[in-house]
Protein backbone atom coordinates (compact mmCIF):
# COMPACT_ATOMS: atom_id res chain seq x y z
CA UNK A 1 0.00 0.00 0.00
CA UNK A 2 1.30 3.43 -0.94
CA UNK A 3 2.33 5.80 1.81
CA UNK A 4 -0.54 8.06 2.81
CA UNK A 5 -0.32 11.66 1.66
CA UNK A 6 -2.27 12.86 4.67
CA UNK A 7 -1.88 11.03 7.95
CA UNK A 8 -3.87 12.05 11.02
CA UNK A 9 -3.15 10.41 14.36
CA UNK A 10 -4.99 10.85 17.64
CA UNK A 11 -6.41 14.26 16.84
CA UNK A 12 -8.48 15.84 19.63
CA UNK A 13 -10.13 19.21 20.06
CA UNK A 14 -12.48 20.39 22.79
CA UNK A 15 -14.56 23.50 23.10
CA UNK A 16 -15.17 23.66 26.83
CA UNK A 17 -16.89 20.41 27.78
CA UNK A 18 -17.71 19.59 24.17
CA UNK A 19 -15.35 17.14 22.49
CA UNK A 20 -15.64 18.26 18.88
CA UNK A 21 -12.85 15.96 17.77
CA UNK A 22 -12.14 12.90 19.90
CA UNK A 23 -9.01 10.90 19.15
CA UNK A 24 -9.51 10.89 15.40
CA UNK A 25 -7.12 8.94 13.20
CA UNK A 26 -7.53 8.70 9.47
CA UNK A 27 -5.43 8.87 6.35
CA UNK A 28 -5.67 9.80 2.71
CA UNK A 29 -3.85 7.71 0.13
CA UNK A 30 -2.80 8.63 -3.41
CA UNK A 31 -5.57 8.44 -5.98
CA UNK A 32 -8.49 7.99 -3.62
CA UNK A 33 -11.58 9.85 -2.62
CA UNK A 34 -12.05 9.43 1.11
CA UNK A 35 -15.46 10.64 2.20
CA UNK A 36 -16.17 11.89 5.69
CA UNK A 37 -19.82 11.57 6.65
CA UNK A 38 -21.73 12.00 9.83
CA UNK A 39 -24.82 13.65 11.25
CA UNK A 40 -24.99 17.40 11.74
CA UNK A 41 -22.82 18.46 14.63
CA UNK A 42 -20.58 15.41 14.34
CA UNK A 43 -17.53 17.66 14.07
CA UNK A 44 -16.78 17.33 10.37
CA UNK A 45 -16.14 21.01 9.77
CA UNK A 46 -14.10 21.31 12.95
CA UNK A 47 -11.96 18.43 11.75
CA UNK A 48 -11.49 20.03 8.32
CA UNK A 49 -10.49 23.31 9.96
CA UNK A 50 -7.83 21.58 12.05
CA UNK A 51 -6.44 19.91 8.95
CA UNK A 52 -6.40 23.17 7.01
CA UNK A 53 -4.82 24.99 9.95
CA UNK A 54 -7.62 27.44 10.65
CA UNK A 55 -7.90 26.14 14.22
CA UNK A 56 -5.28 24.37 16.30
CA UNK A 57 -5.81 20.90 17.70
CA UNK A 58 -5.45 20.21 21.42
CA UNK A 59 -3.64 16.92 20.87
CA UNK A 60 -2.57 14.60 18.10
CA UNK A 61 -0.66 15.08 14.91
CA UNK A 62 -1.30 15.82 11.26
CA UNK A 63 1.32 14.84 8.69
CA UNK A 64 1.44 15.85 5.05
CA UNK A 65 3.80 13.71 2.96
CA UNK A 66 5.33 12.50 6.19
CA UNK A 67 6.06 15.98 7.44
CA UNK A 68 4.43 17.22 10.65
CA UNK A 69 2.27 20.28 10.15
CA UNK A 70 2.50 21.55 13.71
CA UNK A 71 3.44 25.21 13.63
CA UNK A 72 2.43 25.61 9.98
CA UNK A 73 -0.46 28.05 9.58
CA UNK A 74 -3.28 27.88 7.03
CA UNK A 75 -1.38 29.92 4.43
CA UNK A 76 1.70 27.73 4.87
CA UNK A 77 -0.37 24.57 4.47
CA UNK A 78 -1.96 25.96 1.32
CA UNK A 79 1.51 26.55 -0.08
CA UNK A 80 2.40 22.95 0.73
CA UNK A 81 -0.44 21.95 -1.57
CA UNK A 82 -3.40 21.63 0.76
CA UNK A 83 -6.20 22.90 -1.44
CA UNK A 84 -9.43 23.72 0.31
CA UNK A 85 -12.97 24.57 -0.65
CA UNK A 86 -15.45 25.95 1.83
CA UNK A 87 -18.89 24.86 2.96
CA UNK A 88 -20.20 28.26 1.89
CA UNK A 89 -18.48 29.25 -1.35
CA UNK A 90 -15.63 31.56 -0.50
CA UNK A 91 -14.11 33.55 -3.34
CA UNK A 92 -13.25 37.20 -3.94
CA UNK A 93 -16.67 38.18 -5.23
CA UNK A 94 -15.67 41.49 -6.87
CA UNK A 95 -12.92 39.81 -8.86
CA UNK A 96 -13.55 38.06 -12.12
CA UNK A 97 -13.12 34.32 -12.45
CA UNK A 98 -9.69 34.87 -14.01
CA UNK A 99 -8.57 37.25 -11.24
CA UNK A 100 -9.60 34.76 -8.58
CA UNK A 101 -7.63 31.96 -10.17
CA UNK A 102 -4.64 34.21 -10.88
CA UNK A 103 -4.67 35.07 -7.17
CA UNK A 104 -4.43 31.37 -6.37
CA UNK A 105 -1.59 30.81 -8.86
CA UNK A 106 0.17 33.79 -7.31
CA UNK A 107 -0.35 32.38 -3.81
CA UNK A 108 1.15 29.05 -4.83
CA UNK A 109 4.11 30.82 -6.45
CA UNK A 110 4.89 32.45 -3.10
CA UNK A 111 5.78 35.76 -4.79
CA UNK A 112 3.18 38.30 -3.71
CA UNK A 113 5.41 41.22 -2.76
CA UNK A 114 5.99 42.47 -6.29
CA UNK A 115 4.88 45.98 -6.85
CA UNK A 116 5.63 46.97 -10.43
CA UNK A 117 4.43 44.68 -13.21
CA UNK A 118 0.72 44.50 -13.96
CA UNK A 119 -0.45 41.17 -12.63
CA UNK A 120 -3.09 40.67 -15.32
CA UNK A 121 -0.41 40.84 -18.02
CA UNK A 122 1.86 38.33 -16.31
CA UNK A 123 1.87 35.25 -18.53
CA UNK A 124 3.54 33.23 -15.77
CA UNK A 125 0.28 33.59 -13.82
CA UNK A 126 -2.32 33.95 -16.56
CA UNK A 127 -1.45 30.84 -18.55
CA UNK A 128 -1.63 28.37 -15.65
CA UNK A 129 -4.79 30.13 -14.45
CA UNK A 130 -6.54 29.68 -17.81
CA UNK A 131 -5.47 26.05 -17.76
CA UNK A 132 -7.06 25.50 -14.33
CA UNK A 133 -10.22 27.29 -15.43
CA UNK A 134 -10.48 24.96 -18.40
CA UNK A 135 -10.00 21.89 -16.22
CA UNK A 136 -12.76 23.07 -13.90
CA UNK A 137 -15.08 23.50 -16.88
CA UNK A 138 -15.36 27.28 -16.74
CA UNK A 139 -13.85 28.16 -20.12
CA UNK A 140 -15.57 31.20 -21.57
CA UNK A 141 -16.46 32.58 -18.13
CA UNK A 142 -13.04 34.09 -17.35
CA UNK A 143 -14.18 37.71 -17.37
CA UNK A 144 -17.38 37.23 -15.39
CA UNK A 145 -17.29 38.69 -11.86
CA UNK A 146 -17.52 35.94 -9.26
CA UNK A 147 -20.55 37.63 -7.74
CA UNK A 148 -22.45 37.12 -11.00
CA UNK A 149 -21.75 33.37 -11.21
CA UNK A 150 -24.43 30.79 -10.66
CA UNK A 151 -24.02 28.70 -7.51
CA UNK A 152 -22.65 25.68 -9.36
CA UNK A 153 -20.20 27.82 -11.28
CA UNK A 154 -18.88 29.30 -8.06
CA UNK A 155 -18.22 25.75 -6.86
CA UNK A 156 -16.29 25.13 -10.04
CA UNK A 157 -14.37 28.35 -9.47
CA UNK A 158 -13.31 27.05 -6.06
CA UNK A 159 -12.15 23.85 -7.75
CA UNK A 160 -10.19 25.89 -10.32
CA UNK A 161 -8.53 27.83 -7.46
CA UNK A 162 -7.74 24.56 -5.71
CA UNK A 163 -6.13 23.23 -8.90
CA UNK A 164 -4.05 26.39 -9.15
CA UNK A 165 -2.40 25.55 -5.82
CA UNK A 166 -0.62 22.55 -7.42
CA UNK A 167 -2.47 20.43 -4.89
CA UNK A 168 -1.07 17.48 -2.97
CA UNK A 169 -4.58 16.90 -1.66
CA UNK A 170 -8.04 18.42 -1.80
CA UNK A 171 -10.09 19.24 1.29
CA UNK A 172 -13.61 19.73 0.02
CA UNK A 173 -16.24 20.78 2.54
CA UNK A 174 -19.68 19.90 1.17
CA UNK A 175 -19.04 20.83 -2.46
CA UNK A 176 -22.48 19.52 -3.49
CA UNK A 177 -24.39 21.58 -0.94
CA UNK A 178 -27.17 23.56 -2.53
CA UNK A 179 -26.71 22.02 -5.98
CA UNK A 180 -29.53 20.54 -8.04
CA UNK A 181 -29.42 16.93 -9.20
CA UNK A 182 -27.91 17.79 -12.54
CA UNK A 183 -25.37 20.19 -11.02
CA UNK A 184 -24.34 17.60 -8.45
CA UNK A 185 -23.84 15.03 -11.21
CA UNK A 186 -21.62 17.35 -13.26
CA UNK A 187 -19.58 18.30 -10.20
CA UNK A 188 -19.38 14.62 -9.22
CA UNK A 189 -17.88 13.77 -12.61
CA UNK A 190 -15.39 16.58 -12.13
CA UNK A 191 -14.35 15.28 -8.70
CA UNK A 192 -14.16 11.75 -10.07
CA UNK A 193 -11.42 12.88 -12.46
CA UNK A 194 -9.65 15.02 -9.87
CA UNK A 195 -8.66 12.11 -7.65
CA UNK A 196 -5.91 11.26 -10.11
CA UNK A 197 -4.42 14.73 -9.71
CA UNK A 198 -4.49 14.50 -5.93
CA UNK A 199 -6.55 12.55 -3.41
CA UNK A 200 -9.70 14.12 -2.03
CA UNK A 201 -10.94 14.26 1.54
CA UNK A 202 -14.60 14.89 0.92
CA UNK A 203 -17.12 16.04 3.49
CA UNK A 204 -20.52 15.52 1.94
CA UNK A 205 -24.16 15.09 2.87
CA UNK A 206 -25.25 13.86 -0.56
CA UNK A 207 -25.18 10.11 0.10
CA UNK A 208 -25.67 9.16 -3.55
CA UNK A 209 -22.57 11.11 -4.45
CA UNK A 210 -20.61 9.72 -1.49
CA UNK A 211 -21.33 6.10 -2.32
CA UNK A 212 -20.86 6.61 -6.05
CA UNK A 213 -17.54 8.46 -5.85
CA UNK A 214 -15.74 7.29 -2.74
CA UNK A 215 -13.10 4.64 -2.43
CA UNK A 216 -13.35 4.74 1.34
CA UNK A 217 -15.81 6.27 3.78
CA UNK A 218 -15.25 7.28 7.39
CA UNK A 219 -18.19 7.91 9.66
CA UNK A 220 -17.84 10.59 12.30
CA UNK A 221 -20.24 10.69 15.25
CA UNK A 222 -19.81 13.04 18.22
CA UNK A 223 -16.24 13.71 17.16
CA UNK A 224 -15.24 10.03 16.95
CA UNK A 225 -14.60 7.91 13.89
CA UNK A 226 -16.99 4.99 14.44
CA UNK A 227 -16.20 3.19 11.17
CA UNK A 228 -13.92 3.35 8.17
CA UNK A 229 -14.26 1.14 5.11
CA UNK A 230 -15.35 0.77 1.52
CA UNK A 231 -18.80 2.09 0.65
CA UNK A 232 -20.16 -1.47 0.74
CA UNK A 233 -18.69 -2.16 4.16
CA UNK A 234 -20.10 1.08 5.48
CA UNK A 235 -23.55 0.33 4.09
CA UNK A 236 -23.48 -3.06 5.77
CA UNK A 237 -22.12 -1.86 9.12
CA UNK A 238 -24.92 -2.22 11.68
CA UNK A 239 -23.46 0.45 13.96
CA UNK A 240 -23.41 2.94 11.09
CA UNK A 241 -26.93 2.06 10.09
CA UNK A 242 -28.08 2.64 13.63
CA UNK A 243 -26.41 6.00 14.28
CA UNK A 244 -26.49 7.55 10.88
CA UNK A 245 -27.95 5.99 7.82
CA UNK A 246 -30.94 4.80 9.77
CA UNK A 247 -32.03 8.37 10.24
CA UNK A 248 -32.49 8.78 6.54
CA UNK A 249 -33.75 5.34 5.60
Amino acid sequence: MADPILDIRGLSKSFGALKATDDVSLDLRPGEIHALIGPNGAGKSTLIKQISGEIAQDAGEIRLDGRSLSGVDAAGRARLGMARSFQVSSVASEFTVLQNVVLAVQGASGATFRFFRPVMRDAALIDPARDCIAQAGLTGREDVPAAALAHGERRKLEIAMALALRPRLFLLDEPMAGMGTEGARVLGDLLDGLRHRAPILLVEHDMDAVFRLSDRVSVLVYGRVVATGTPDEIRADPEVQRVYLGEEA
Partner: protein
Amino acid sequence: MSAAEITAAPTGRGGRMARAQIVNAALALGLIGFGLGAWATGETFLVTLATKVAILAIAGAGLNLVLGFGGLVSFGHAAYFGLGGYTAGILAHHALNYTPMFEWPVLFEGTTSMPVIWLVAMAVGALAAAVIGALSLRTTGVYFIMITLAFGQMIFYFAISWPAYGGEDGLPIYVRNGFPGLNTLDPIQFFVLVVALLLAVLGLIAMLARSRFGLALQAARQNRQRLMAVGIRPGGVLLVAFVISGAITALAGALYADLNRFVSPSMLSWHLSGELLVFLILGGTGRLFAPLAGAGLYIALEHLLGGVSDHWQFFFGLLLLGVVLFARGGVIGFLAGGRKHG
Protein backbone atom coordinates in the same frame (compact mmCIF):
# COMPACT_ATOMS: atom_id res chain seq x y z
CA MET B 1 -12.25 51.10 -9.22
CA SER B 2 -10.97 47.95 -7.50
CA ALA B 3 -11.79 45.09 -9.81
CA ALA B 4 -12.17 47.36 -12.81
CA GLU B 5 -8.78 48.84 -11.95
CA ILE B 6 -7.11 45.51 -12.21
CA THR B 7 -9.00 44.10 -15.17
CA ALA B 8 -8.22 47.18 -17.20
CA ALA B 9 -5.23 45.66 -18.90
CA PRO B 10 -6.23 42.55 -20.82
CA THR B 11 -9.98 42.43 -20.47
CA GLY B 12 -10.98 46.09 -20.19
CA ARG B 13 -14.59 46.43 -21.16
CA GLY B 14 -14.71 49.55 -23.29
CA GLY B 15 -17.35 52.05 -22.27
CA ARG B 16 -17.20 52.19 -18.53
CA MET B 17 -13.42 52.14 -18.22
CA ALA B 18 -13.14 54.88 -20.77
CA ARG B 19 -15.68 56.96 -18.89
CA ALA B 20 -13.81 56.61 -15.61
CA GLN B 21 -10.62 57.67 -17.34
CA ILE B 22 -12.32 60.72 -18.83
CA VAL B 23 -13.57 61.71 -15.38
CA ASN B 24 -10.08 61.25 -13.94
CA ALA B 25 -8.50 63.32 -16.69
CA ALA B 26 -11.13 66.00 -16.23
CA LEU B 27 -10.40 66.16 -12.51
CA ALA B 28 -6.64 66.45 -13.03
CA LEU B 29 -6.98 69.03 -15.81
CA GLY B 30 -9.62 70.88 -13.81
CA LEU B 31 -7.25 71.30 -10.88
CA ILE B 32 -4.34 72.37 -13.10
CA GLY B 33 -6.57 74.68 -15.14
CA PHE B 34 -8.02 76.25 -12.02
CA GLY B 35 -4.58 76.89 -10.54
CA LEU B 36 -3.16 78.34 -13.75
CA GLY B 37 -6.28 80.37 -14.42
CA ALA B 38 -6.20 81.85 -10.94
CA TRP B 39 -2.54 82.69 -11.39
CA ALA B 40 -3.16 84.30 -14.80
CA THR B 41 -5.84 86.53 -13.32
CA GLY B 42 -3.72 87.42 -10.32
CA GLU B 43 -5.92 85.58 -7.79
CA THR B 44 -3.04 84.40 -5.60
CA PHE B 45 -5.39 83.28 -2.86
CA LEU B 46 -7.12 80.85 -5.22
CA VAL B 47 -3.77 79.42 -6.32
CA THR B 48 -3.06 78.71 -2.68
CA LEU B 49 -6.52 77.17 -2.30
CA ALA B 50 -5.87 74.86 -5.28
CA THR B 51 -2.51 73.94 -3.75
CA LYS B 52 -4.31 73.04 -0.53
CA VAL B 53 -6.69 70.79 -2.47
CA ALA B 54 -3.76 69.01 -4.14
CA ILE B 55 -1.99 68.47 -0.81
CA LEU B 56 -5.10 67.15 0.91
CA ALA B 57 -5.67 64.90 -2.11
CA ILE B 58 -2.21 63.40 -1.59
CA ALA B 59 -3.07 62.76 2.07
CA GLY B 60 -6.38 61.20 1.01
CA ALA B 61 -4.60 59.09 -1.61
CA GLY B 62 -2.51 57.59 1.16
CA LEU B 63 -5.66 56.69 3.08
CA ASN B 64 -7.32 55.41 -0.08
CA LEU B 65 -4.62 52.79 -0.50
CA VAL B 66 -5.56 51.10 2.78
CA LEU B 67 -9.25 51.98 2.90
CA GLY B 68 -10.31 51.84 -0.73
CA PHE B 69 -8.11 48.96 -1.82
CA GLY B 70 -7.39 47.13 1.43
CA GLY B 71 -10.69 47.79 3.20
CA LEU B 72 -9.02 49.08 6.38
CA VAL B 73 -10.96 51.92 7.99
CA SER B 74 -8.13 53.89 9.57
CA PHE B 75 -9.48 56.68 11.74
CA GLY B 76 -6.00 57.83 12.67
CA HIS B 77 -4.37 59.03 9.49
CA ALA B 78 -3.95 62.50 10.96
CA ALA B 79 -1.07 60.92 12.87
CA TYR B 80 0.99 60.49 9.69
CA PHE B 81 -0.14 63.82 8.28
CA GLY B 82 0.90 65.59 11.48
CA LEU B 83 4.15 63.67 11.81
CA GLY B 84 5.05 64.68 8.27
CA GLY B 85 4.19 68.27 9.14
CA TYR B 86 6.25 68.25 12.32
CA THR B 87 9.15 66.65 10.47
CA ALA B 88 9.18 69.57 8.05
CA GLY B 89 8.68 72.07 10.87
CA ILE B 90 11.35 70.69 13.17
CA LEU B 91 14.00 70.25 10.46
CA ALA B 92 13.39 73.81 9.23
CA HIS B 93 13.24 75.17 12.80
CA HIS B 94 16.75 73.94 13.57
CA ALA B 95 18.16 75.07 10.25
CA LEU B 96 16.62 78.53 10.48
CA ASN B 97 17.58 79.09 14.12
CA TYR B 98 21.08 77.68 13.76
CA THR B 99 20.45 75.32 16.68
CA PRO B 100 21.87 71.86 15.98
CA MET B 101 19.27 69.13 16.10
CA PHE B 102 21.86 66.69 17.43
CA GLU B 103 25.64 66.66 17.64
CA TRP B 104 26.32 62.98 17.99
CA PRO B 105 27.34 60.88 16.09
CA VAL B 106 27.58 63.69 13.56
CA LEU B 107 26.59 67.31 13.76
CA PHE B 108 23.14 67.77 12.22
CA GLU B 109 21.72 71.24 11.96
CA GLY B 110 18.41 70.50 10.28
CA THR B 111 17.62 71.35 6.70
CA THR B 112 15.46 73.59 4.55
CA SER B 113 15.72 71.39 1.46
CA MET B 114 12.32 70.04 0.46
CA PRO B 115 13.56 66.81 -1.14
CA VAL B 116 15.45 65.91 2.04
CA ILE B 117 12.51 66.90 4.22
CA TRP B 118 10.14 64.80 2.10
CA LEU B 119 12.34 61.74 2.41
CA VAL B 120 12.67 62.13 6.16
CA ALA B 121 8.95 62.81 6.54
CA MET B 122 8.07 59.71 4.53
CA ALA B 123 10.50 57.62 6.57
CA VAL B 124 8.96 58.92 9.81
CA GLY B 125 5.45 58.27 8.49
CA ALA B 126 6.39 54.78 7.33
CA LEU B 127 8.00 53.95 10.67
CA ALA B 128 5.01 55.19 12.65
CA ALA B 129 2.65 53.28 10.36
CA ALA B 130 4.75 50.13 10.76
CA VAL B 131 4.49 50.29 14.56
CA ILE B 132 0.85 51.37 14.70
CA GLY B 133 -0.13 49.00 11.89
CA ALA B 134 1.60 46.00 13.44
CA LEU B 135 -0.42 46.52 16.63
CA SER B 136 -3.70 47.65 15.06
CA LEU B 137 -3.86 44.90 12.44
CA ARG B 138 -4.33 42.36 15.21
CA THR B 139 -7.88 43.68 15.37
CA THR B 140 -10.61 44.04 12.78
CA GLY B 141 -13.80 46.00 12.25
CA VAL B 142 -14.79 48.60 14.77
CA TYR B 143 -11.86 47.71 17.05
CA PHE B 144 -9.46 48.57 14.26
CA ILE B 145 -11.17 51.94 13.82
CA MET B 146 -10.94 52.64 17.54
CA ILE B 147 -7.34 51.55 17.99
CA THR B 148 -6.13 53.67 15.06
CA LEU B 149 -8.05 56.61 16.53
CA ALA B 150 -6.44 55.97 19.91
CA PHE B 151 -2.92 55.99 18.45
CA GLY B 152 -3.70 59.18 16.58
CA GLN B 153 -4.91 60.88 19.76
CA MET B 154 -1.82 59.70 21.68
CA ILE B 155 0.43 61.48 19.21
CA PHE B 156 -1.86 64.52 19.25
CA TYR B 157 -1.61 64.89 23.03
CA PHE B 158 2.10 64.24 22.91
CA ALA B 159 2.53 67.16 20.50
CA ILE B 160 0.42 69.42 22.71
CA SER B 161 2.35 68.63 25.85
CA TRP B 162 5.87 68.74 24.43
CA PRO B 163 7.05 72.35 24.79
CA ALA B 164 10.28 72.09 22.78
CA TYR B 165 8.49 72.58 19.46
CA GLY B 166 5.77 75.00 20.42
CA GLY B 167 3.39 72.63 22.19
CA GLU B 168 -0.16 73.84 21.85
CA ASP B 169 0.91 77.01 20.04
CA GLY B 170 2.50 75.17 17.14
CA LEU B 171 5.70 75.87 15.31
CA PRO B 172 6.16 78.52 12.61
CA ILE B 173 8.37 78.04 9.55
CA TYR B 174 9.61 81.54 8.78
CA VAL B 175 10.62 80.91 5.19
CA ARG B 176 9.08 78.20 3.03
CA ASN B 177 11.60 75.40 2.47
CA GLY B 178 13.40 75.34 -0.84
CA PHE B 179 13.43 73.11 -3.89
CA PRO B 180 16.42 73.20 -6.27
CA GLY B 181 15.73 75.44 -9.24
CA LEU B 182 12.38 76.72 -7.96
CA ASN B 183 11.24 79.72 -5.98
CA THR B 184 8.82 77.92 -3.68
CA LEU B 185 7.55 81.18 -2.22
CA ASP B 186 6.01 81.94 -5.59
CA PRO B 187 2.52 80.41 -5.21
CA ILE B 188 2.31 79.13 -8.78
CA GLN B 189 5.69 77.42 -8.63
CA PHE B 190 4.78 75.71 -5.37
CA PHE B 191 1.42 74.75 -6.89
CA VAL B 192 3.07 73.12 -9.90
CA LEU B 193 5.47 71.25 -7.63
CA VAL B 194 2.61 69.93 -5.48
CA VAL B 195 0.50 68.91 -8.47
CA ALA B 196 3.46 67.02 -9.92
CA LEU B 197 3.80 65.15 -6.64
CA LEU B 198 0.05 64.43 -6.57
CA LEU B 199 0.17 62.92 -10.06
CA ALA B 200 3.26 60.91 -9.15
CA VAL B 201 1.52 59.54 -6.04
CA LEU B 202 -1.63 58.66 -7.98
CA GLY B 203 0.52 56.99 -10.64
CA LEU B 204 2.29 55.00 -7.94
CA ILE B 205 -1.01 53.86 -6.45
CA ALA B 206 -2.38 52.91 -9.88
CA MET B 207 0.73 50.83 -10.44
CA LEU B 208 0.46 49.17 -7.02
CA ALA B 209 -3.23 48.40 -7.57
CA ARG B 210 -2.44 46.53 -10.78
CA SER B 211 0.51 44.60 -9.38
CA ARG B 212 0.61 41.21 -7.70
CA PHE B 213 0.67 43.05 -4.39
CA GLY B 214 -2.41 45.03 -5.39
CA LEU B 215 -4.29 41.89 -6.35
CA ALA B 216 -3.62 40.40 -2.92
CA LEU B 217 -4.47 43.70 -1.21
CA GLN B 218 -7.83 43.93 -2.93
CA ALA B 219 -8.50 40.27 -2.17
CA ALA B 220 -7.79 41.03 1.50
CA ARG B 221 -10.58 43.60 1.43
CA GLN B 222 -13.05 41.10 0.01
CA ASN B 223 -12.23 37.84 1.72
CA ARG B 224 -9.32 37.29 4.10
CA GLN B 225 -10.25 33.64 4.64
CA ARG B 226 -9.93 32.97 0.92
CA LEU B 227 -6.60 34.77 0.76
CA MET B 228 -5.25 32.51 3.52
CA ALA B 229 -6.57 29.46 1.69
CA VAL B 230 -4.51 30.28 -1.41
CA GLY B 231 -1.39 30.62 0.71
CA ILE B 232 -1.15 34.40 1.20
CA ARG B 233 -1.14 35.87 4.71
CA PRO B 234 -3.39 38.93 4.73
CA GLY B 235 -1.54 40.48 7.68
CA GLY B 236 1.71 41.01 5.81
CA VAL B 237 0.00 42.41 2.73
CA LEU B 238 -2.08 44.83 4.78
CA LEU B 239 0.89 45.94 6.89
CA VAL B 240 2.97 46.77 3.81
CA ALA B 241 0.02 48.75 2.41
CA PHE B 242 -0.32 50.54 5.75
CA VAL B 243 3.35 51.52 5.73
CA ILE B 244 3.21 52.87 2.17
CA SER B 245 0.01 54.67 3.08
CA GLY B 246 1.61 56.28 6.14
CA ALA B 247 4.57 57.47 4.06
CA ILE B 248 2.31 59.06 1.43
CA THR B 249 0.16 60.83 4.00
CA ALA B 250 3.28 62.06 5.81
CA LEU B 251 4.56 63.52 2.54
CA ALA B 252 1.31 65.46 2.28
CA GLY B 253 1.79 66.64 5.86
CA ALA B 254 5.24 68.02 5.07
CA LEU B 255 3.81 69.90 2.08
CA TYR B 256 0.93 71.22 4.17
CA ALA B 257 3.36 72.58 6.74
CA ASP B 258 5.20 74.40 3.97
CA LEU B 259 1.96 75.68 2.48
CA ASN B 260 0.93 77.31 5.77
CA ARG B 261 4.50 77.89 6.94
CA PHE B 262 3.17 76.70 10.24
CA VAL B 263 2.70 73.39 12.04
CA SER B 264 0.31 72.90 14.92
CA PRO B 265 -1.22 69.99 16.79
CA SER B 266 -4.44 70.55 14.81
CA MET B 267 -2.74 68.67 11.96
CA LEU B 268 -2.74 65.65 14.28
CA SER B 269 -6.30 65.99 15.50
CA TRP B 270 -8.98 63.41 14.83
CA HIS B 271 -10.94 66.03 12.92
CA LEU B 272 -8.37 65.74 10.19
CA SER B 273 -8.60 61.93 10.19
CA GLY B 274 -12.33 62.37 9.75
CA GLU B 275 -11.91 64.87 6.93
CA LEU B 276 -9.69 62.45 5.03
CA LEU B 277 -12.38 59.77 5.36
CA VAL B 278 -14.98 62.27 4.18
CA PHE B 279 -12.91 63.08 1.08
CA LEU B 280 -12.94 59.43 0.09
CA ILE B 281 -16.63 58.92 0.79
CA LEU B 282 -17.46 62.04 -1.23
CA GLY B 283 -15.15 61.11 -4.07
CA GLY B 284 -15.94 57.40 -4.18
CA THR B 285 -13.91 55.10 -1.95
CA GLY B 286 -11.52 52.87 -3.86
CA ARG B 287 -11.51 55.08 -6.94
CA LEU B 288 -8.04 56.25 -7.83
CA PHE B 289 -9.04 59.92 -8.13
CA ALA B 290 -11.54 59.88 -5.24
CA PRO B 291 -9.25 61.87 -2.91
CA LEU B 292 -8.88 64.65 -5.50
CA ALA B 293 -12.61 64.79 -6.23
CA GLY B 294 -13.46 64.70 -2.53
CA ALA B 295 -10.87 67.21 -1.37
CA GLY B 296 -11.76 69.55 -4.23
CA LEU B 297 -15.45 69.43 -3.43
CA TYR B 298 -14.85 69.83 0.30
CA ILE B 299 -12.57 72.84 -0.05
CA ALA B 300 -14.81 74.43 -2.67
CA LEU B 301 -17.85 74.08 -0.42
CA GLU B 302 -15.92 75.31 2.60
CA HIS B 303 -14.90 78.36 0.60
CA LEU B 304 -18.28 79.06 -1.01
CA LEU B 305 -20.69 78.06 1.75
CA GLY B 306 -18.35 79.42 4.41
CA GLY B 307 -18.87 82.85 2.86
CA VAL B 308 -22.65 82.49 3.13
CA SER B 309 -23.01 81.00 6.57
CA ASP B 310 -20.80 80.28 9.55
CA HIS B 311 -22.69 77.01 9.86
CA TRP B 312 -21.64 75.72 6.46
CA GLN B 313 -20.85 72.34 7.91
CA PHE B 314 -24.53 71.81 8.54
CA PHE B 315 -25.23 72.02 4.82
CA PHE B 316 -22.16 69.99 4.14
CA GLY B 317 -23.51 67.32 6.48
CA LEU B 318 -26.71 67.19 4.45
CA LEU B 319 -24.67 66.68 1.29
CA LEU B 320 -22.65 63.91 2.90
CA LEU B 321 -25.84 62.25 4.06
CA GLY B 322 -27.17 62.42 0.51
CA VAL B 323 -24.02 60.83 -0.90
CA VAL B 324 -24.04 58.03 1.65
CA LEU B 325 -27.71 57.30 1.13
CA PHE B 326 -28.14 57.81 -2.61
CA ALA B 327 -24.75 57.84 -4.31
CA ARG B 328 -22.59 55.24 -2.63
CA GLY B 329 -20.03 55.45 -5.41
CA GLY B 330 -19.43 59.11 -4.56
CA VAL B 331 -18.83 61.80 -7.16
CA ILE B 332 -16.78 59.55 -9.41
CA GLY B 333 -19.24 56.69 -9.13
CA PHE B 334 -21.99 59.13 -10.06
CA LEU B 335 -20.14 60.51 -13.08
CA ALA B 336 -18.40 57.40 -14.34
CA GLY B 337 -21.01 54.79 -13.54
CA GLY B 338 -20.88 52.39 -10.63
CA ARG B 339 -18.49 49.55 -10.27
CA LYS B 340 -19.56 46.59 -12.24
CA HIS B 341 -20.02 44.66 -9.03
CA GLY B 342 -19.45 44.70 -5.30
